[in-house]
C-alpha cells in the first residue's frame, strides 16, 4: 500500500520546489520511486511465492491443517525422495568437476590447434539448444534397439563385425527332442546310429526369414552305413503338430549340420538341401548325435540398456556434461587468453616442461575462472530438472530422480501433494543458499 501511495505522489512531473534541497523525500523518496518497479516485480514473483511456499510446507496436502514438520519428516524417510537426494549429491560430486575439467582440457588443447575457432563452435553448439531438446535427442540416441539408438548402433557395427549374426538367429527347437542353447548350438537328445534318420525340427522362424529356395520338407530314406536327416521349419499356419513333419512345412536349406561323437567332438559336417535333408555317408559304427552349430543361432547385437535402471544416472550425466562442456570451455578459454604470456615464457626459459607450466603457472592463474565455472555448475546441477525428465523413461524415473524432479512430481505429477512439494522446494532452496553465499562473497572480493 505505502509504495503504491508514494508512486502516486511522485508521478506529477518534477518534485515540489520547497523539497528541492536534500529533504527526506529527496533522499528516500526518489530512491524508492526508482526502485519501485523492480521491487514490485521481485515481490510479486519472488518474495511472495517464496514466503508462501515456506508457509505451505507446514500444511497438509490440501492446505487445510497445520502439521508442523511432518512434511520434512516424510522428505527424509520416504525411499523415493531419499533416492532423489542421494542422486543429487552424486550429481554435485561428479558433474561440476567433469564439466570444469573437460572445459579446461578443451580450452588448453584448442589454444594450440590451427582451426581452433571451428572446434570451439562445434563444442559450444549444444549450448544453443535447450536442455530439454538436448534430452530428447539423447533419449533417442540411447534407445536400446541398435536399429534406433545411435549409441548402440555404433557398438553394434563393431560387435557384428567380430561375431556376425547367424541365418536363423531367433529359431528355437520345436520339441524337447532338441536340446541346448545358443552357446553350444542345438543337439538331438537321443543318440543315433548309422542307418537311422535324424529329425531336427525348428520353430519361431518368420515366413520371411526362411532361406530362399526352401521346398516342402521331406523325411529322407535311411542310408546303410550312413546317417541321414532333415532340418525343417516345424510350423504351418495354425501351428501343426510339433515334432511331426507335415504337409506345408518347409525344409531349411543351407543350415550347417554337425555330427558329434559320444565325447561331443565333431566328426563330420554338411549343409542341408532345399528340402532340408542332409546325409553323412560312410559313418563308422557307433553312436552319434546330430547337432546344429551355435553360429547358426548367433543373435545380432541386442544393445546396451542405457535407459535401464542401472545406467540411467550416468547416461543422463553424460548428456548433461556434453551440453555444458562448451560453456565451460569458452569461459576458461577467455580466462586463458588473459594470462600474461611472458609468465609462461619466463617459466619455459627457466627450463620448465609443458606439464610443469600447465600445473604450476596456468592452473593457479586460472583458479578464479575455474572456481566461477565450478560454482556456476554447482548451482545448475543442484536444480537440474529438464534433462532428467526428458531422458528418463517413466519406468526408471525413480532411479534417475533428483530433488527438483521429485518436487515437480510430488506437486504436479499426479500426487498433488502441494505441502510435501513445498517442503522439497524449501529443502532445495536451503541447499542452494550456501553456494549462492559463496558466490556473492566472491563477487564482492573481486569488485
Amino acid at each position, binding site marked *: 500500500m*505505502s509504495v503504491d501511495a508514494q508512486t502516486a505522489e511522485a508521478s506529477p512531473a518534477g518534485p515540489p520546489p520547497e523539497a528541492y534541497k536534500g529533504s527526506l523525500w529527496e533522499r528516500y523518496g526518489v530512491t524508492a520511486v526508482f526502485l519501485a518497479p523492480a521491487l514490485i516485480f521481485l*515481490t510479486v514473483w519472488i*518474495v511472495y511465492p517464496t514466503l508462501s511456499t515456506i508457509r505451505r510446507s507446514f500444511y497438509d496436502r490440501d*492446505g487445510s491443517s497445520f502439521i508442523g514438520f511432518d512434511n520434512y519428516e516424510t522428505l527424509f524417510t520416504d525411499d523415493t525422495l531419499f533416492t532423489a537426494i542421494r542422486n543429487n549429491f552424486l550429481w554435485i560430486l561428479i558433474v561440476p568437476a567433469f564439466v570444469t575439467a573437460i572445459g579446461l582440457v578443451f580450452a588448453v588443447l584448442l589454444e594450440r590447434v590451427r582451426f581452433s575457432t571451428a572446434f570451439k563452435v562445434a563444442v559450444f553448439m549444444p549450448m544453443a539448444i535447450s536442455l530439454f531438446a538436448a534430452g530428447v535427442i539423447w533419449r533417442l540416441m540411447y534407445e536400446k534397439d541398435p536399429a534406433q539408438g545411435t549409441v548402440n548402433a555404433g557398438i553394434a557395427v563393431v560387435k557384428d563385425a567380430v561375431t556376425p549374426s547367424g541365418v536363423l538367429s531367433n529359431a528355437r527347437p520345436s520339441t524337447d527332442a532338441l536340446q541346448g542353447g545358443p552357446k553350444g548350438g542345438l543337439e538331438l537328445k537321443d543318440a543315433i546310429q548309422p542307418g537311422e534318420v535324424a529329425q531336427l525340427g525348428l520353430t519361431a522362424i518368420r515366413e520371411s526369414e526362411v532361406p530362399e529356395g526352401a521346398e516342402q520338407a521331406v523325411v529322407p530314406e535311411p542310408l546303410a552305413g550312413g546317417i541321414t536327416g532333415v532340418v525343417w521349419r516345424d510350423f504351418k499356419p495354425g501351428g501343426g503338430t510339433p515334432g511331426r513333419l507335415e504337409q506345408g512345412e518347409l525344409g531349411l536349406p543351407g543350415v550347417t549340420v554337425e555330427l558329434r561323437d559320444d565325447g561331443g567332438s565333431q566328426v563330420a559336417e554338411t549343409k542341408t538341401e532345399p528340402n532340408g535333408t542332409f546325409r553323412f555317408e560312410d559313418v563308422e559304427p557307433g553312436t552319434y548325435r546330430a547337432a546344429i552349430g551355435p553360429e547358426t543361432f548367433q543373435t545380432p547385437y541386442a544393445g546396451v540398456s542405457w535407459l535401464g535402471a542401472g545406467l540411467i544416472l550416468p547416461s543422463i550425466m553424460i548428456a548433461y556434461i556434453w551440453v555444458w562442456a562448451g560453456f565451460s570451455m569458452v569461459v576458461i578459454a577467455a580466462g586463458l587468453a588473459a594470462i600474461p604470456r611472458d609468465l609462461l615464457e619466463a617459466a619455459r626459459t627457466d627450463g620448465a616442461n609443458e606439464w610443469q607450466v600447465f600445473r604450476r603457472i596456468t592452473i593457479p592463474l586460472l583458479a578464479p575462472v575455474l572456481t566461477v565455472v565450478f560454482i556456476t555448475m554447482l548451482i545448475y546441477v543442484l536444480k537440474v530438472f529438464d534433462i532428467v525428465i526428458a531422458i528418463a523413461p517413466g519406468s526408471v524415473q525413480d532411479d534417475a530422480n533428483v530433488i527438483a524432479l521429485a518436487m515437480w512430481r510430488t506437486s504436479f505429477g499426479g500426487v498433488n501433494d502441494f505441502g510435501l512439494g513445498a517442503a522439497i522446494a524449501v529443502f532445495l532452496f536451503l541447499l542452494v543458499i550456501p553456494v549462492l553465499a559463496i558466490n556473492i562473497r566472491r563477487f564482492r572480493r573481486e569488485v
Partner: protein
Amino acid sequence: MRYGSVFAALAAALAFAAAGCGGDDGGGGGDAASGSEDVSGNVSVMAIWAGEEQKSFQAVIDAFEEKFPNVTVKYTSGGDNLAPILSTAVQGGNPPTIAALGQPGLMAEFAKQNAIKPIDNLQAKIKDAFGDDVAAAGEVDGTQYGVMYKGSNKSTVWYNVATFEEAGVEAPKTWDELDQVRDTVKAAGITPYSVGVDLGWPISDIFENVYLRNSGEEKYDQLSKHEIPWTDQSVKDALTIMKDVVGQSDNMVGGTDGALQTEMPDSVANVFSDNPKGSMVIIGDFAPGVTETTLQPVTGYNVFDFPSIDGSKPSVVGGGDLFVKFEDTPAADAFLEYMTTPEAAEVWAKRGGFSSPNKDLDLSVYPDEITRTTAGALAKAETFRFDMSDLQPAGFGATAGQGLWKGFTDFVANPNNIDKITQQMEADAKKAYK
C-alpha cells in the same frame, strides 16, 4: 543505511502484495455470488479435451445451447494438467462451474473438501441411462456427484490381422485360447505381444482386467478401497496369470528390457504397422488414436474383447470423464441433466473418437465398425468397473514411478518376485491411505 532503505521498501512492497492478494480473494467470491443469482446463467466447463476432441465437445455445447438459449457455456481445455489446475483453482476459491474429471479419486477428494456439490436429484435418471455399475462410478459414499458422459473401454486386445493370418490363428475368446494363440504366433516366428511398460499403467490395466475376471467384482471393489491388502492371495493369483503375457522375455517386443523402455504409443505402433514387430497389444479402445498407421481398421488391425477367465461373464474395466459441478446453479443442473441424455451422446458419437456408456444410445450412430464393437461392449457389459488405479489416491494409483505403476513395472522387470512386489505395493498403499 543502504540496507535499511532496502528493507523498508521491501516491507512496504510486502504489505502491498498482501493487500492486493486479499482484494483478489474478495473479488472472486463476489463474482460467484452474483452469478448464482442469474437464472439464465453462465456455465464455465473445464475438461482435458483439446484439439479435435475440443471441437467435438463444442458441438455438444452448441446442441445444449440450442435447447437452453439463455444459458451461455464457455469451455476451457485444461489439457493433461487438468488435475493440478483444478486443485489449484479450488484452493484459490475460483473453480469452474462444471468440470469433467477423469479420476474418481480426485472426485472423492473434492467431495471431501465440499468443493463439489451432490446431484442426488439426478441419480434416478443416471441409473436409468447408464445402469447401476456406471452410475456407481460417480458416487462417493452413496451420494451421487458425477455423470459419466464419456467412457472408455479398457478391456480390449488389438491385433495385427496379417500376423494372425500368417500364424493361422483366430481371435480368442478365453484366456486359455489366448495362451494358445500366443504359442502359435511365437512358433510362427512372430513376437506375440507388444507391451509398453514405460509408465506402468498399461500393465495396471491388464492387471485390473485379469483381477476382475479371476476374483470377481466383490474382491475388485474391496481391493479398490484397500479393504483387503495388496498381499492378498487373489492379487498374487492375478499376477501369476499375467505371467502368461509378461513372464517371458521373448513374449514381448524388444524382450523385457525393451518393453520396460517402450512408451505406450510405440507399443501400439509396433502392432499397427505394415511391418509389425509384435502381433497383439493389450490396451484400451483409444489405441487407434495414439499412432499414425497405414493399416485399415478391421482388415489391417482389429480388436477382440479381453478374454474371459474360467467362464467369467462379459466384463469391462473402463475409464470415463465424470461431469461434476462446483456451483449450485440451475444452469449447471440443466447442463448435467443434458449429459445423461442419449442426444448429448449422439452428437459426439457421430463425430467419432467417442464411446458412450449410455445404454439408450443406438450403436448405429458410431461411424465405424471398430467403435461399434468397443463402445457396444462398454454399454452392454454385464459388469462395469472403473479403472482401479484411478480409484486410488493419485499418489498411489496414478503417478509415474510411484505406487502401483512402479509396482507393475517392477513386476515386468522381475516377474518371479511376486511376494516382494505385493509387499511393496501394500506398504505404498498403507502410506497413501494413511
